[in-house]
Protein backbone atom coordinates (compact mmCIF):
# COMPACT_ATOMS: atom_id res chain seq x y z
CA UNK A 1 0.00 0.00 0.00
CA UNK A 2 2.81 2.45 0.86
CA UNK A 3 4.92 1.81 -2.24
CA UNK A 4 4.39 0.80 -5.85
CA UNK A 5 5.65 -2.74 -6.61
CA UNK A 6 8.45 -1.99 -9.13
CA UNK A 7 11.45 -1.62 -6.85
CA UNK A 8 10.33 -4.28 -4.34
CA UNK A 9 9.99 -6.73 -7.28
CA UNK A 10 13.55 -5.83 -8.35
CA UNK A 11 14.79 -6.47 -4.79
CA UNK A 12 12.86 -9.75 -4.58
CA UNK A 13 14.41 -10.93 -7.86
CA UNK A 14 17.91 -10.19 -6.53
CA UNK A 15 17.21 -11.91 -3.21
CA UNK A 16 15.85 -14.95 -5.05
CA UNK A 17 19.01 -15.08 -7.15
CA UNK A 18 21.39 -14.37 -4.24
CA UNK A 19 19.67 -16.87 -1.95
CA UNK A 20 18.52 -14.49 0.78
CA UNK A 21 18.30 -10.85 1.78
CA UNK A 22 21.82 -9.85 0.80
CA UNK A 23 22.09 -6.07 0.52
CA UNK A 24 25.59 -6.45 -0.96
CA UNK A 25 24.01 -8.18 -3.96
CA UNK A 26 21.60 -5.25 -4.37
CA UNK A 27 24.53 -2.79 -4.36
CA UNK A 28 26.28 -4.93 -6.97
CA UNK A 29 23.18 -5.11 -9.19
CA UNK A 30 22.64 -1.36 -8.88
CA UNK A 31 26.31 -0.79 -9.73
CA UNK A 32 25.80 -2.88 -12.87
CA UNK A 33 22.73 -0.80 -13.81
CA UNK A 34 24.64 2.48 -13.30
CA UNK A 35 27.49 1.14 -15.47
CA UNK A 36 25.04 -0.02 -18.15
CA UNK A 37 23.43 3.42 -18.08
CA UNK A 38 26.82 5.09 -18.67
CA UNK A 39 27.47 2.82 -21.70
CA UNK A 40 24.02 3.64 -23.06
CA UNK A 41 24.66 7.35 -22.51
CA UNK A 42 27.79 6.97 -24.66
CA UNK A 43 25.68 5.44 -27.46
CA UNK A 44 23.07 8.18 -27.12
CA UNK A 45 25.70 10.93 -27.06
CA UNK A 46 27.32 9.41 -30.15
CA UNK A 47 23.97 9.29 -31.92
CA UNK A 48 23.40 12.96 -31.04
CA UNK A 49 26.82 14.45 -31.86
CA UNK A 50 28.25 11.84 -34.25
CA UNK A 51 31.71 12.04 -32.67
CA UNK A 52 33.20 9.17 -30.72
CA UNK A 53 35.62 11.04 -28.45
CA UNK A 54 33.21 13.79 -27.54
CA UNK A 55 30.64 11.12 -26.67
CA UNK A 56 33.31 9.30 -24.64
CA UNK A 57 34.18 12.47 -22.71
CA UNK A 58 30.55 13.20 -21.85
CA UNK A 59 29.68 9.61 -20.91
CA UNK A 60 32.85 9.38 -18.79
CA UNK A 61 31.97 12.63 -17.00
CA UNK A 62 28.54 11.24 -16.21
CA UNK A 63 29.67 7.68 -15.41
CA UNK A 64 32.54 8.98 -13.25
CA UNK A 65 30.35 11.50 -11.44
CA UNK A 66 30.66 10.49 -7.77
CA UNK A 67 27.25 11.85 -6.90
CA UNK A 68 25.66 9.58 -9.53
CA UNK A 69 27.89 6.58 -8.74
CA UNK A 70 27.06 6.90 -5.03
CA UNK A 71 23.43 5.91 -5.62
CA UNK A 72 24.57 2.32 -6.29
CA UNK A 73 24.96 1.69 -2.57
CA UNK A 74 21.68 3.28 -1.49
CA UNK A 75 18.75 0.88 -1.04
CA UNK A 76 16.22 3.10 -2.79
CA UNK A 77 14.65 3.07 -6.25
CA UNK A 78 16.97 5.78 -7.67
CA UNK A 79 19.55 3.62 -9.48
CA UNK A 80 16.87 1.46 -11.13
CA UNK A 81 14.86 4.52 -12.19
CA UNK A 82 18.01 6.17 -13.58
CA UNK A 83 18.79 3.16 -15.79
CA UNK A 84 15.17 2.86 -16.97
CA UNK A 85 14.99 6.53 -17.99
CA UNK A 86 18.32 6.33 -19.86
CA UNK A 87 17.15 3.20 -21.71
CA UNK A 88 13.78 4.76 -22.59
CA UNK A 89 15.43 7.84 -24.06
CA UNK A 90 17.94 5.73 -26.01
CA UNK A 91 15.03 3.69 -27.45
CA UNK A 92 13.17 6.94 -28.15
CA UNK A 93 16.11 8.29 -30.15
CA UNK A 94 16.28 5.04 -32.11
CA UNK A 95 12.52 5.21 -32.81
CA UNK A 96 12.91 8.73 -34.23
CA UNK A 97 15.29 7.28 -36.81
CA UNK A 98 13.54 3.99 -37.52
CA UNK A 99 9.86 3.56 -36.73
CA UNK A 100 10.31 -0.06 -35.66
CA UNK A 101 7.44 -1.54 -33.68
CA UNK A 102 10.00 -3.32 -31.49
CA UNK A 103 11.41 0.02 -30.30
CA UNK A 104 7.92 1.28 -29.48
CA UNK A 105 7.12 -1.94 -27.62
CA UNK A 106 10.37 -1.70 -25.62
CA UNK A 107 9.63 1.91 -24.71
CA UNK A 108 6.06 1.10 -23.70
CA UNK A 109 7.10 -1.79 -21.46
CA UNK A 110 9.90 0.26 -19.93
CA UNK A 111 7.78 3.26 -19.03
CA UNK A 112 5.10 1.03 -17.54
CA UNK A 113 7.83 -0.48 -15.33
CA UNK A 114 9.09 3.09 -14.68
CA UNK A 115 5.68 4.26 -13.43
CA UNK A 116 5.36 1.26 -11.12
CA UNK A 117 8.85 1.97 -9.82
CA UNK A 118 8.36 5.71 -9.43
CA UNK A 119 4.78 7.07 -9.76
CA UNK A 120 6.34 10.50 -10.32
CA UNK A 121 7.10 9.28 -13.88
CA UNK A 122 3.42 9.21 -14.85
CA UNK A 123 4.18 12.10 -17.19
CA UNK A 124 6.71 10.12 -19.27
CA UNK A 125 4.48 8.30 -21.86
CA UNK A 126 2.33 11.41 -22.35
CA UNK A 127 5.30 13.66 -23.04
CA UNK A 128 7.28 11.36 -25.33
CA UNK A 129 4.21 10.20 -27.31
CA UNK A 130 3.15 13.85 -27.68
CA UNK A 131 6.56 14.74 -29.12
CA UNK A 132 6.24 11.87 -31.64
CA UNK A 133 2.68 12.92 -32.55
CA UNK A 134 3.60 16.61 -33.00
CA UNK A 135 6.62 15.65 -35.10
CA UNK A 136 4.43 13.40 -37.29
CA UNK A 137 1.94 16.25 -37.72
CA UNK A 138 4.73 18.71 -38.60
CA UNK A 139 5.95 16.25 -41.22
CA UNK A 140 2.35 15.76 -42.47
CA UNK A 141 2.53 12.04 -41.73
CA UNK A 142 0.21 11.85 -38.74
CA UNK A 143 -2.37 9.74 -40.60
CA UNK A 144 0.15 6.96 -41.24
CA UNK A 145 1.87 7.09 -37.82
CA UNK A 146 -0.83 7.63 -35.20
CA UNK A 147 -1.77 3.96 -34.65
CA UNK A 148 1.29 2.72 -32.73
CA UNK A 149 1.29 5.94 -30.70
CA UNK A 150 -2.39 5.56 -29.76
CA UNK A 151 -1.90 1.87 -28.97
CA UNK A 152 1.07 2.60 -26.72
CA UNK A 153 -0.83 5.42 -24.98
CA UNK A 154 -3.89 3.22 -24.39
CA UNK A 155 -1.79 0.28 -23.17
CA UNK A 156 0.36 2.39 -20.82
CA UNK A 157 -2.38 4.38 -19.14
CA UNK A 158 -4.86 1.50 -19.38
CA UNK A 159 -2.63 -0.69 -17.22
CA UNK A 160 -1.99 2.16 -14.78
CA UNK A 161 -5.72 2.95 -14.53
CA UNK A 162 -6.53 -0.74 -14.01
CA UNK A 163 -4.01 -0.85 -11.14
CA UNK A 164 -5.48 2.33 -9.66
CA UNK A 165 -8.94 0.82 -9.91
CA UNK A 166 -7.81 -2.31 -8.08
CA UNK A 167 -6.08 -0.10 -5.49
CA UNK A 168 -9.31 1.88 -4.99
CA UNK A 169 -11.33 -1.33 -4.63
CA UNK A 170 -8.89 -2.57 -1.97
CA UNK A 171 -8.06 0.61 -0.04
CA UNK A 172 -10.89 3.00 -0.90
CA UNK A 173 -8.54 5.56 -2.41
CA UNK A 174 -7.93 6.09 -6.12
CA UNK A 175 -4.16 6.26 -6.49
CA UNK A 176 -0.96 4.30 -7.08
CA UNK A 177 0.38 4.25 -3.53
CA UNK A 178 0.10 5.87 -0.12
CA UNK A 179 3.32 7.81 -0.58
CA UNK A 180 1.76 10.35 -2.95
CA UNK A 181 -0.68 11.31 -0.16
CA UNK A 182 2.17 11.50 2.36
CA UNK A 183 4.12 13.73 -0.04
CA UNK A 184 1.15 16.07 -0.47
CA UNK A 185 0.87 16.42 3.30
CA UNK A 186 4.64 16.94 3.52
CA UNK A 187 4.52 19.71 0.92
CA UNK A 188 1.71 21.51 2.74
CA UNK A 189 3.55 21.16 6.07
CA UNK A 190 6.83 22.37 4.54
CA UNK A 191 5.18 25.48 3.07
CA UNK A 192 3.52 26.14 6.44
CA UNK A 193 6.86 25.85 8.26
CA UNK A 194 8.95 27.79 5.73
CA UNK A 195 6.60 30.55 4.63
CA UNK A 196 3.80 30.43 7.21
CA UNK A 197 1.30 29.33 4.58
CA UNK A 198 -2.09 29.09 6.36
CA UNK A 199 -3.43 25.54 6.49
CA UNK A 200 -6.90 26.69 5.45
CA UNK A 201 -8.98 26.41 2.28
CA UNK A 202 -10.00 22.78 2.81
CA UNK A 203 -13.57 21.51 3.36
CA UNK A 204 -15.01 21.83 6.87
CA UNK A 205 -14.92 18.02 7.34
CA UNK A 206 -11.13 18.42 7.68
CA UNK A 207 -11.30 20.97 10.55
CA UNK A 208 -10.13 18.37 13.08
CA UNK A 209 -7.21 17.33 10.88
CA UNK A 210 -6.27 20.98 10.34
CA UNK A 211 -6.29 21.69 14.11
CA UNK A 212 -4.11 18.62 14.75
CA UNK A 213 -1.69 19.61 11.96
CA UNK A 214 -1.35 23.10 13.48
CA UNK A 215 -0.85 21.62 16.96
CA UNK A 216 1.72 19.09 15.73
CA UNK A 217 5.27 20.14 16.48
CA UNK A 218 7.71 17.74 14.91
CA UNK A 219 10.51 20.32 14.81
CA UNK A 220 10.47 20.06 11.01
CA UNK A 221 7.94 19.26 8.30
CA UNK A 222 7.55 15.61 9.16
CA UNK A 223 4.47 13.99 7.61
CA UNK A 224 5.50 10.51 8.77
CA UNK A 225 5.78 11.81 12.34
CA UNK A 226 2.32 13.36 12.04
CA UNK A 227 0.83 10.10 10.77
CA UNK A 228 2.46 8.20 13.63
CA UNK A 229 1.12 10.74 16.15
CA UNK A 230 -2.40 10.74 14.65
CA UNK A 231 -2.99 7.21 13.28
CA UNK A 232 -6.75 7.88 13.06
CA UNK A 233 -6.12 9.79 9.80
CA UNK A 234 -4.04 6.97 8.34
CA UNK A 235 -6.94 5.17 6.69
CA UNK A 236 -7.74 4.49 3.00
CA UNK A 237 -4.05 4.65 2.01
CA UNK A 238 -3.76 8.17 3.42
CA UNK A 239 -6.71 9.60 1.48
CA UNK A 240 -7.87 11.90 4.37
CA UNK A 241 -4.60 13.83 4.71
CA UNK A 242 -3.90 13.60 0.95
CA UNK A 243 -7.25 15.22 0.09
CA UNK A 244 -6.86 17.79 2.90
CA UNK A 245 -3.36 18.77 1.73
CA UNK A 246 -4.29 18.97 -1.96
CA UNK A 247 -7.26 21.25 -1.13
CA UNK A 248 -5.02 23.50 1.00
CA UNK A 249 -2.35 23.64 -1.73
CA UNK A 250 -4.94 24.46 -4.42
CA UNK A 251 -6.18 27.34 -2.25
CA UNK A 252 -2.67 28.85 -2.03
CA UNK A 253 -1.03 28.71 -5.47
CA UNK A 254 1.24 31.68 -4.64
CA UNK A 255 2.91 29.81 -1.76
CA UNK A 256 3.21 26.69 -3.92
CA UNK A 257 4.91 28.67 -6.71
CA UNK A 258 7.28 30.37 -4.25
CA UNK A 259 8.20 27.04 -2.63
CA UNK A 260 8.76 25.42 -6.04
CA UNK A 261 10.96 28.31 -7.19
CA UNK A 262 13.08 28.30 -4.01
CA UNK A 263 13.43 24.51 -4.19
CA UNK A 264 14.63 24.73 -7.79
CA UNK A 265 17.20 27.35 -6.77
CA UNK A 266 18.71 24.90 -4.28
CA UNK A 267 19.77 22.90 -7.36
CA UNK A 268 21.67 25.74 -9.00
CA UNK A 269 23.53 26.66 -5.82
CA UNK A 270 24.26 23.01 -5.21
CA UNK A 271 27.36 22.26 -3.18
CA UNK A 272 26.52 19.23 -1.13
CA UNK A 273 28.60 16.12 -0.83
CA UNK A 274 26.98 12.85 -1.88
CA UNK A 275 24.87 11.39 0.87
CA UNK A 276 26.85 9.65 3.60
CA UNK A 277 30.27 10.42 2.11
CA UNK A 278 32.56 12.36 4.45
CA UNK A 279 32.51 16.18 4.50
CA UNK A 280 34.79 17.74 1.89
CA UNK A 281 37.56 18.70 4.37
CA UNK A 282 37.82 15.13 5.63
CA UNK A 283 38.11 13.48 2.23
CA UNK A 284 41.42 12.19 0.88
CA UNK A 285 43.18 14.75 -1.32
CA UNK A 286 42.49 12.79 -4.50
CA UNK A 287 38.77 12.46 -3.91
CA UNK A 288 37.88 16.07 -3.08
CA UNK A 289 38.55 17.50 -6.58
CA UNK A 290 36.53 14.69 -8.16
CA UNK A 291 33.69 15.48 -5.83
CA UNK A 292 33.92 19.17 -6.77
CA UNK A 293 33.82 18.15 -10.44
CA UNK A 294 30.67 16.15 -9.70
CA UNK A 295 28.91 19.35 -8.57
CA UNK A 296 28.95 20.48 -12.21
CA UNK A 297 25.35 19.25 -12.17
CA UNK A 298 24.37 22.46 -10.35
CA UNK A 299 26.00 24.60 -13.03
CA UNK A 300 24.25 22.60 -15.76
CA UNK A 301 20.86 23.22 -14.13
CA UNK A 302 21.55 26.97 -14.09
CA UNK A 303 21.42 26.82 -17.91
CA UNK A 304 18.14 24.85 -17.97
CA UNK A 305 15.74 27.65 -19.03
CA UNK A 306 18.03 28.81 -21.82
CA UNK A 307 18.75 25.27 -23.08
CA UNK A 308 15.08 24.32 -22.98
CA UNK A 309 13.99 27.36 -24.99
CA UNK A 310 16.82 26.91 -27.48
CA UNK A 311 16.02 23.21 -27.97
CA UNK A 312 12.28 23.91 -28.30
CA UNK A 313 12.69 26.58 -30.98
CA UNK A 314 15.26 24.59 -32.96
CA UNK A 315 13.28 21.32 -32.78
CA UNK A 316 10.13 23.14 -33.97
CA UNK A 317 11.96 24.64 -36.95
CA UNK A 318 13.83 21.45 -37.82
CA UNK A 319 11.35 18.66 -37.07
CA UNK A 320 12.98 16.49 -39.77
CA UNK A 321 16.21 16.46 -37.76
CA UNK A 322 15.77 13.41 -35.50
CA UNK A 323 18.79 14.36 -33.35
CA UNK A 324 17.38 17.79 -32.62
CA UNK A 325 13.98 16.35 -31.70
CA UNK A 326 15.69 13.82 -29.41
CA UNK A 327 17.62 16.64 -27.74
CA UNK A 328 14.38 18.57 -27.20
CA UNK A 329 12.71 15.44 -25.79
CA UNK A 330 15.57 15.11 -23.30
CA UNK A 331 15.07 18.70 -22.17
CA UNK A 332 11.31 18.25 -21.98
CA UNK A 333 11.70 15.19 -19.76
CA UNK A 334 14.07 17.14 -17.48
CA UNK A 335 11.64 20.08 -17.21
CA UNK A 336 8.62 17.83 -16.53
CA UNK A 337 10.59 15.79 -13.99
CA UNK A 338 11.78 18.91 -12.18
CA UNK A 339 8.26 20.40 -12.22
CA UNK A 340 6.84 17.29 -10.54
CA UNK A 341 9.79 17.02 -8.14
CA UNK A 342 9.62 20.64 -6.90
CA UNK A 343 5.92 20.22 -6.20
CA UNK A 344 6.35 16.86 -4.48
CA UNK A 345 9.40 17.90 -2.47
CA UNK A 346 9.35 18.50 1.21
CA UNK A 347 12.85 17.46 2.13
CA UNK A 348 14.37 15.26 -0.56
CA UNK A 349 14.30 17.23 -3.79
CA UNK A 350 17.83 16.15 -4.82
CA UNK A 351 16.75 12.53 -4.56
CA UNK A 352 13.58 13.01 -6.61
CA UNK A 353 15.56 14.96 -9.19
CA UNK A 354 18.51 12.56 -9.48
CA UNK A 355 17.22 10.22 -12.28
CA UNK A 356 17.38 13.08 -14.84
CA UNK A 357 20.64 14.73 -13.71
CA UNK A 358 22.52 12.83 -16.44
CA UNK A 359 20.30 14.33 -19.17
CA UNK A 360 21.08 17.83 -17.92
CA UNK A 361 24.82 17.08 -17.97
CA UNK A 362 24.59 15.48 -21.41
CA UNK A 363 22.66 18.28 -23.11
CA UNK A 364 24.70 21.09 -21.56
CA UNK A 365 27.91 19.17 -22.38
CA UNK A 366 26.84 18.75 -26.01
CA UNK A 367 26.08 22.45 -26.27
CA UNK A 368 29.39 23.49 -24.63
CA UNK A 369 31.36 21.23 -27.01
CA UNK A 370 29.40 22.54 -30.02
CA UNK A 371 30.14 26.13 -28.93
CA UNK A 372 33.84 25.41 -28.38
CA UNK A 373 34.22 23.66 -31.72
CA UNK A 374 32.28 26.37 -33.58
CA UNK A 375 29.37 24.14 -34.56
CA UNK A 376 27.08 26.69 -32.89
CA UNK A 377 28.01 30.20 -33.89
CA UNK A 378 26.24 32.68 -31.61
CA UNK A 379 27.22 35.57 -33.91
CA UNK A 380 25.42 34.01 -36.87
CA UNK A 381 21.68 33.80 -37.39
CA UNK A 382 22.23 30.35 -38.93
CA UNK A 383 23.35 28.53 -35.79
CA UNK A 384 23.97 24.86 -36.18
CA UNK A 385 22.94 22.77 -33.19
CA UNK A 386 24.68 19.47 -32.49
CA UNK A 387 22.95 16.71 -34.37
Amino acid at each position, binding site marked *: *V*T*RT*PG*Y*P*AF*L*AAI*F*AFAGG*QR*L*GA*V*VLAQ*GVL*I*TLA*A*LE*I*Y*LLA*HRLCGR*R*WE*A*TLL*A*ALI*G*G*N*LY*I*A*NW*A*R*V*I*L*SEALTYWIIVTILLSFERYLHRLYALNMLAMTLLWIVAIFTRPQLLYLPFILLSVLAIRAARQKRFAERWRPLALSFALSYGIVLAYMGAFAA*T*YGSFGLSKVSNVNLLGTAMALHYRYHMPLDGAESRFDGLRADALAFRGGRPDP*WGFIAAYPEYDTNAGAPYGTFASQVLRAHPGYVARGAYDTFLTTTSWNQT*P*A*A*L*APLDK*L*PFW*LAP*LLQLSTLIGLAYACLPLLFLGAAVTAWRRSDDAGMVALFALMLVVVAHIAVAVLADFESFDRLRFPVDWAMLLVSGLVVIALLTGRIDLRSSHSVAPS
Partner: protein
Amino acid sequence: MALTSDADRPSAIARALRWLHGPLISRARQHLLPLGIVFLITVGAQIMIQLQAPHVVTYSDSGEYLAVARRLLAGDLTPASRRPM
Protein backbone atom coordinates in the same frame (compact mmCIF):
# COMPACT_ATOMS: atom_id res chain seq x y z
CA MET B 1 16.74 -30.79 -58.33
CA ALA B 2 18.53 -28.14 -56.26
CA LEU B 3 20.17 -25.34 -58.23
CA THR B 4 23.19 -25.24 -55.89
CA SER B 5 24.93 -28.16 -54.34
CA ASP B 6 26.10 -28.30 -50.72
CA ALA B 7 29.66 -27.96 -51.97
CA ASP B 8 28.91 -24.52 -53.48
CA ARG B 9 27.42 -23.22 -50.27
CA PRO B 10 29.92 -21.39 -47.95
CA SER B 11 30.60 -23.19 -44.71
CA ALA B 12 29.20 -21.93 -41.41
CA ILE B 13 32.68 -20.76 -40.39
CA ALA B 14 33.15 -18.86 -43.66
CA ARG B 15 29.75 -17.23 -43.22
CA ALA B 16 30.59 -16.30 -39.61
CA LEU B 17 33.93 -14.80 -40.71
CA ARG B 18 32.22 -12.82 -43.46
CA TRP B 19 29.67 -11.54 -40.92
CA LEU B 20 32.46 -10.57 -38.50
CA HIS B 21 34.01 -8.46 -41.24
CA GLY B 22 30.68 -6.96 -42.29
CA PRO B 23 29.64 -3.34 -41.82
CA LEU B 24 27.62 -3.95 -38.64
CA ILE B 25 30.50 -5.54 -36.76
CA SER B 26 33.07 -3.08 -38.06
CA ARG B 27 30.79 -0.25 -36.90
CA ALA B 28 30.44 -1.91 -33.51
CA ARG B 29 34.21 -2.49 -33.26
CA GLN B 30 35.00 1.22 -33.54
CA HIS B 31 33.00 1.80 -30.34
CA LEU B 32 34.82 -0.85 -28.30
CA LEU B 33 37.60 1.44 -27.06
CA PRO B 34 35.30 4.36 -26.11
CA LEU B 35 32.92 1.93 -24.38
CA GLY B 36 35.87 0.35 -22.57
CA ILE B 37 37.04 3.75 -21.32
CA VAL B 38 33.55 4.71 -20.12
CA PHE B 39 33.21 1.31 -18.45
CA LEU B 40 36.53 1.64 -16.58
CA ILE B 41 35.80 5.18 -15.39
CA THR B 42 32.29 4.29 -14.22
CA VAL B 43 33.43 1.19 -12.37
CA GLY B 44 36.44 3.14 -11.03
CA ALA B 45 34.14 5.80 -9.54
CA GLN B 46 32.10 3.11 -7.80
CA ILE B 47 35.24 1.42 -6.45
CA MET B 48 36.48 4.79 -5.12
CA ILE B 49 33.23 5.27 -3.25
CA GLN B 50 33.35 1.73 -1.87
CA LEU B 51 36.90 2.40 -0.61
CA GLN B 52 35.88 5.69 0.98
CA ALA B 53 32.61 4.52 2.54
CA PRO B 54 32.25 0.75 2.33
CA HIS B 55 28.76 0.44 3.73
CA VAL B 56 25.25 0.05 2.37
CA VAL B 57 23.10 3.16 2.87
CA THR B 58 19.53 2.62 4.03
CA TYR B 59 16.78 5.04 4.99
CA SER B 60 13.37 4.49 6.54
CA ASP B 61 11.98 4.19 2.98
CA SER B 62 14.44 1.34 2.35
CA GLY B 63 12.83 -0.63 5.17
CA GLU B 64 9.42 -0.32 3.48
CA TYR B 65 10.81 -1.50 0.15
CA LEU B 66 12.57 -4.42 1.82
CA ALA B 67 9.42 -5.44 3.71
CA VAL B 68 7.41 -5.55 0.47
CA ALA B 69 10.24 -7.44 -1.27
CA ARG B 70 10.26 -10.07 1.50
CA ARG B 71 6.50 -10.51 1.12
CA LEU B 72 6.82 -10.86 -2.65
CA LEU B 73 9.58 -13.40 -2.16
CA ALA B 74 7.36 -15.37 0.22
CA GLY B 75 4.53 -15.23 -2.34
CA ASP B 76 2.34 -13.21 0.02
CA LEU B 77 0.34 -10.88 -2.21
CA THR B 78 -2.42 -10.19 0.31
CA PRO B 79 -3.16 -6.45 0.54
CA ALA B 80 -1.97 -4.87 3.79
CA SER B 81 -5.54 -3.99 4.78
CA ARG B 82 -6.55 -7.67 4.66
CA ARG B 83 -3.55 -9.12 6.51
CA PRO B 84 -4.06 -10.21 10.13
CA MET B 85 -2.63 -7.68 12.59
